[in-house]
């Protein structure tokens, strides 16, 4: 009896160092500096899931490169192409790629395509990101208010959303921007003003699902105001859905900007955007097809990569969808 007892103690002492070693690494999985040894938090688990998705990681790298290319536009202009995006070289207009020192050729005004591509990307990405943020702010607040308060407020707001949803967004945007020359920031807000309806429905649904949960009731019992409940208790719970929505919406918004600028209604010359570079180029399809091909390819690669990152994020942030 005693011997088995001591054997057990010995066994425990034997594996104790291993137990210590297993518990020892006080790694900060949560990134919150608590140094606890509990299971990794939501975000680090999501990041690990994302890293396993090879396609999404490659897409993220390419997206980062494209963003870097656009951010470095002034450097590219000064050190690589030696052209500004607005200077005309009419004598050397429509150079083929490589001709007359134009690496990717020159457009109908003799402007350098590569420089304009970098500066145009800034505008296209800026408009898309800004529009996504504005849509989230507008649609998010409307959806949250509608879902949280319900009643006639809900009815009025959601009928307004229905009205917007039953006109093609592009048609509305064409209407608005045909009488008004928006700056890139204004264009983003215009796009947001006509496209918030979808998000407001999404957020409304999430809020409806959350508002009768116990932690919301608990907050209310503790005397929290409506605005506090919405901003501190409901919003943090819909952050993952919003991130996924934004990463899947930005490609669509890049396309919207491109389509508008392509029709000559978005960003206007001499300021380049990928869309208005296409608009400028379409008259030269017979002679200089690279002028059409290059900006479109940039739009395409960007949209494709952000899409792939977005669906990677969706799978990583919402394990329920992982099948």
């Amino acid at each position, binding site marked *: 009896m005693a011997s088995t007892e001591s054997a057990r103690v010995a066994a425990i002492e034997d594996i104790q160092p291993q137990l210590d070693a297993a518990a020892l690494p006080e790694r900060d999985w949560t990134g919150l500096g608590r140094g606890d040894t509990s299971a990794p938090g939501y975000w680090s688990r999501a990041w690990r899931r994302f890293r396993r998705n090879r396609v999404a990681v490659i897409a993220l790298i390419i997206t980062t490169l494209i963003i870097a290319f656009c951010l470095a536009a002034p450097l590219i202009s000064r050190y690589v192409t030696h052209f500004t995006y607005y200077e005309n070289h009419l004598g050397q207009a429509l150079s083929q790629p490589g001709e007359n020192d134009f690496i990717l050729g020159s457009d109908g005004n003799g402007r350098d395509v590569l420089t304009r591509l970098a500066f145009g990307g800034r505008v296209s990405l800026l408009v898309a990101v800004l529009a996504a943020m504005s849509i989230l702010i507008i649609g998010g607040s409307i959806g949250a208010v509608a879902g949280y308060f319900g009643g006639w407020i809900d009815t009025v707001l959601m009928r307004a959303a229905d009205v917007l949803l039953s*006109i*093609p967004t592009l048609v509305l945007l064409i209407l608005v921007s*045909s*009488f008004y020359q928006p700056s890139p920031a204004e264009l983003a807000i215009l796009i947001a003003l006509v496209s918030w309806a979808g998000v407001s429905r999404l957020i409304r649904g999430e809020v409806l699902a959350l508002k009768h949960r116990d932690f919301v009731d608990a907050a209310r019992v503790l005397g929290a105001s409506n605005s506090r409940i919405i901003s501190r208790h409901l919003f943090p719970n819909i952050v993952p859905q919003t991130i996924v929505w934004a990463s899947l919406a930005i490609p669509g918004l890049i*396309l919207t900007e491109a389509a508008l600028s392509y029709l000559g209604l978005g960003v206007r010359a001499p300021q380049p955007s990928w869309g208005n570079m296409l608009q400028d180029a379409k008259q030269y399809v017979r002679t200089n*097809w690279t002028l059409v*091909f290059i900006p479109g390819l940039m*739009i395409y690669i960007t949209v*494709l990569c952000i*899409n792939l990152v977005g669906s990677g994020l969706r799978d990583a942030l919402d394990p329920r969808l992982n099948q």
Partner: protein
Amino acid sequence: MTGFIVRRLLQMIPLLLGVTFLTFAIVSFVPGSPVSSMQLNPRARPEDLERIRQNLGLDKPWYERYFLWLSDVLRGDLGLSLTNFTPVTDRILGVLPNTLLLTGTALALALIVAVPLGVASAVRHNSPFDHVVTAVVTALAAIPSFWMALLLIILFAVKFDEWGLPSLPAQGMQDLQGNTGILDRIEHLIMPALALSLGQIAGWTRFIRSSMLEAIGQDYVRTARAKGLVEQSVVYRHAFRNAILPLVTLVGLALPELFGGAYLIEQIFAWNGLGRLAFDATQSNDYTMIMGATLLFAALTMLGNLLADVVYALADPRIRYQ
């Protein structure tokens, strides 16, 4: 069912009022009016312009004009186009068949390609074929339709012509040299319809693939297999018929997208359709024309959604509308 349809039709009324009111408000804040282009005419005297403005009712505030417009519409009159003073209804009806031909062809093309591709991909789940289809479809989904249209023109109209191959016409709806056979119409239709349908092809293939995969995993499919049915019958008679149902809704929801896409595509291919008409109207402040086109777009969209719901209910006995 009849009650459901009636209620949905009634619900369309406030929505259409909202759509027209919103559009009218936006159009009214446009600086300049249809008359401002006439001011460029040196023979137009100020009092003439004033008279024209009064005749068109442009001297009244916009909300008053909205109600005048609305009461005309309720009597079935969409007014006169302000650019060439022909009835809006005539102009719309004149080009509507062209737009329906384009969007209808695109829709049919998308279904013809997407359904077999999605089903085949799901049946051969995780095979190389499935992987290729998934990759191609993901790649296609991100292509901007107007860029695709330009690329099609570059390849099939410009380059094929240069290389001495039979090329496709890049512009218009038919040969202007009098050669107007059915083949010529089809030749003109191929590229715009293809460009317009690519997004739908990509989206629907993906959708049908996942819907089909879900159906194949169901118990009734296992039952069908267990009782010894041939694979053909299991896939097409049991899984496929259930997997295809939600597509009806998707087609209904795609209508605004197709009409919106037609705006761009008609512009690129000089296709004489509703999108081009509406676009030109916005460029020239022709507000009766804009209103007519918007009303039609919105009504078609809503009717499309309603039709999708009705067809869904007819096709799926589990769905009941109260």
